[in-house]
Structures are given as C-alpha cells and as structure tokens.
C-alpha cells in the first residue's frame, strides 16, 4: 500500500493524474517519487510535493491501494482514467477526481471539487462529504455523460449533477443543486433530501427520485400517476408515495421524475389532473 502525504499547504493548482493505481502498479517508491506532476506553471516530481511511503503487505488487493492523507483541495485529476485498484483519501480533494474512470474504487472522507466522476464509464466513487458542481457530467460541449458505474455521496452536491447521464447510478444522501439530471438519457439518480429547481430539465429518459422537497416542477413536465414505491437499484426500493412526472416535453422525453408526495404538498394541485 502506498501512502501519500502532501509536504505543504498547496497554493497553486496541482495537476496529479499520475496518482492512479494503474500507474503506481509495479513501480518502486523511488519511481513513484519521480513521476511528473505540475504545480502552477512549473513541472515537478511527485516526491517534491508528496511524502511517499510504502507499507508492505501481502494482501494483493491492499497492495494496489493508494491512501492520501491531508488537504488536497488544490490537487486535480486524481485517479483520472483509472481502470483498477483503489484510492482512499482522508481530506478534501480538488476537481476532476476519477474523471473518465473505467474501474476500481475511490473513497473520499472529505469534500470534493467539481467534475468528480466526469464521463465515468465504470467503477465506484464514494464520497463522505459534499461535492461541488457537475458530478458525473461531461466536458464542455460533449454529450458523453456518465455511462456506468456508481457514485455515492453522503453530503450535498452542487448544480447539474448527472448531466447527460447515459447509464449507471448516482445516490445522494444530502441535497442536490439545480438542474439535477439535465439532459439525462438513462440511468438513475436518487436524492434523499431536497433538490434545487429544474430537476430533470430536458431529460429524455432515465429516472430521478427526490425524497425531499422540490420547489417547483418545470411546466414542461406532466403528471402521470402516484406511485407507492420506486426501485433505486437491484435490491433497493424506496417507499413513497411519489408523484410521478413524465418529461421533458420539449425534448419529447420519457424521463421519470419521482417526487415525494409527503414533502411536496405544494404540488397537490396536480392531483386534479389525475
């Protein structure tokens, strides 16, 4: 197991896509220390910015794991593109965590910057803290959203979580910002608490479940029915009742938006249409 500890409080952005189990794999501590990393506009070696320690272990799974302790909120692109292995972070971490991830697992005990799990294809990201905007969303101009894998957030998330999602699962046990599941096509997003406005805007398919309050439903969604329960994933079903809205009409969408009936009494005027 490799443990990394920042040697200082970073002031400039640190671009660290080299922190990736696939890259660390089969490298000696010295080789890891020599990996290229950027701090601001200067290229450095990983060892200049992080203390690298190797804890020998025979357990092959543990051997592949990278643990990072400390404040990494300036450190971007950790685990980007990773295919296997595990990263465990104790502390806050910067943008693009696990971007284009294809496998493995990242666990963060702290808050995470924007574009976590952006364009993710497979694997798991578990965040015990809050996440900024664009969780699992694609890069600017791209429609390649999350295609698979699972993101679990125990805190709150910012705007546009799950934008352009094509498959996979995002579970948020806190609140979500605006435009949750924007333009999603398939997959599932579950928010246990409240959602900001415009949830499901322009969605074409997929499922959004909000267990808490949603200020208003977009006028381009129509009420379909009231459901007693809704399935989140294999083996997990949440009890309702839920208002089920279908939309977004403007995209001729057939996305499903489930909203807790109990937490959204202001929507009961829709019931007259049922």
């Amino acid at each position, binding site marked *: 197991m490799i443990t990394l500890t920042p040697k200082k409080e970073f002031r400039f952005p640190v671009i660290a896509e080299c922190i990736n189990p696939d890259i660390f794999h089969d490298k000696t501590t010295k080789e890891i220390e020599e990996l290229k990393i950027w701090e601001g506009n200067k290229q450095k070696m990983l060892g200049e910015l992080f203390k690298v320690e190797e804890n020998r272990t025979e357990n092959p799974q543990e051997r592949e794991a990278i643990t990072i302790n400390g404040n990494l909120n300036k450190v971007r692109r950790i685990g980007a593109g990773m295919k296997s292995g595990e990263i465990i972070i104790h502390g806050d971490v910067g943008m693009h965590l696990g971007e284009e991830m294809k496998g493995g697992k990242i666990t963060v005990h702290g808050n995470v910057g*924007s574009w976590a799990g952006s364009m993710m294809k497979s694997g798991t990201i578990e965040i015990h803290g809050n996440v*900024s*905007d664009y969780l699992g969303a694609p890069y600017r101009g791209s429609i390649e959203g999350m295609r698979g894998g699972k993101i679990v957030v125990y805190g709150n998330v*910012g*705007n546009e979580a799950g934008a352009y999602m094509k498959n996979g699962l995002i579970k948020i046990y806190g609140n979500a910002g605006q435009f949750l599941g924007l333009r999603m096509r398939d997959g599932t997003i579950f928010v246990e608490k409240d959602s900001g406005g415009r949830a499901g805007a322009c969605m074409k398919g997929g499922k959004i479940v909000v267990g808490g309050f949603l200020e208003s439903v977009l006028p381009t969604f129509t009420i379909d029915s009231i459901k007693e329960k809704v399935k989140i994933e294999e083996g997990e079903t949440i009890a309702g009742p839920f208002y089920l809205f279908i939309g977004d009409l403007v995209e001729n969408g057939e996305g499903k938006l489930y909203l807790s009936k109990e937490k959204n009494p202001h929507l009961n005027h829709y019931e007259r249409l049922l």
Partner: protein
Amino acid sequence: MEKNQKLRVTLLTGRTIEQGVGKERGKSSKEYLESVSVCYMDPEDLKRLGIKEKTNIMVSTDYGSVVVKALKSLRAPHPSVIFIPYGPWANVIVNPETHGIGMPSFKGIPAEVEPAPDKPVLSLEELLVEQFGKKSK
C-alpha cells in the same frame, strides 16, 4: 400603510445609460460614481420603508452590506425588486458563487433594504479602503 423598517427584496444589477455615459468619461469621474452608488426602488417600496427619495439606505445580502442612495424608479411597478447599476457598490453585495461556470450571480439575489439616513454613501476611495484595506507590500 404599515411601515416596515426592513424590506425583503430581490436585487438586480445591470446597465443604465447614465452609468454607460459616466463610464466613458472615466471610472473616477463624478458622473460615473454618482450613477452607480444609487438604488432604484418601486415608489410603493419607498413608502413601505417610510422614506423619501434620495434618502440613504443600507442594502444587505448574505455577502455584505453597502450604503447607497435610494431613487424612485421610473419604471414601476416592480414591487420588491430593487436595481443597482453595475459598479463597485453593487459588487460588495452580489453573490460571488459561480456554480462551476465562471460567472458570479449578478441578478436575482435575495436582499434586505433598510433606511440608513445617518450613514454616508462612501466615496470610491473610502469604499476601497473599507473593502480591501490599504494596499501595502
């Protein structure tokens, strides 16, 4: 009419022709500074605050407070919507959050207005000192 000492409003910021004209004269010009340290309000809202036009008011948001001069809006009615032209005064109280898109929130910010007849509208220099302190290296 009941007179509230505090009024909950929505703050908009934006361009005015006066601010535009002033800006071209120079950002230290009197025209510019006078055109941006004001707040346009619905006359009914002024009444609700119990103040006359040209009284100083304090506008507060989650991000700060600033004293500006209240002016009667010529384009009423727009109850509970106030307007401050772009400039150093407005920026004390706008929402810096960009939500990952690079752009702070300059319009539609929840705010509170209260009369502040005894507090002065600061000059640009005073405002800069108040907000940023003296520049020293």
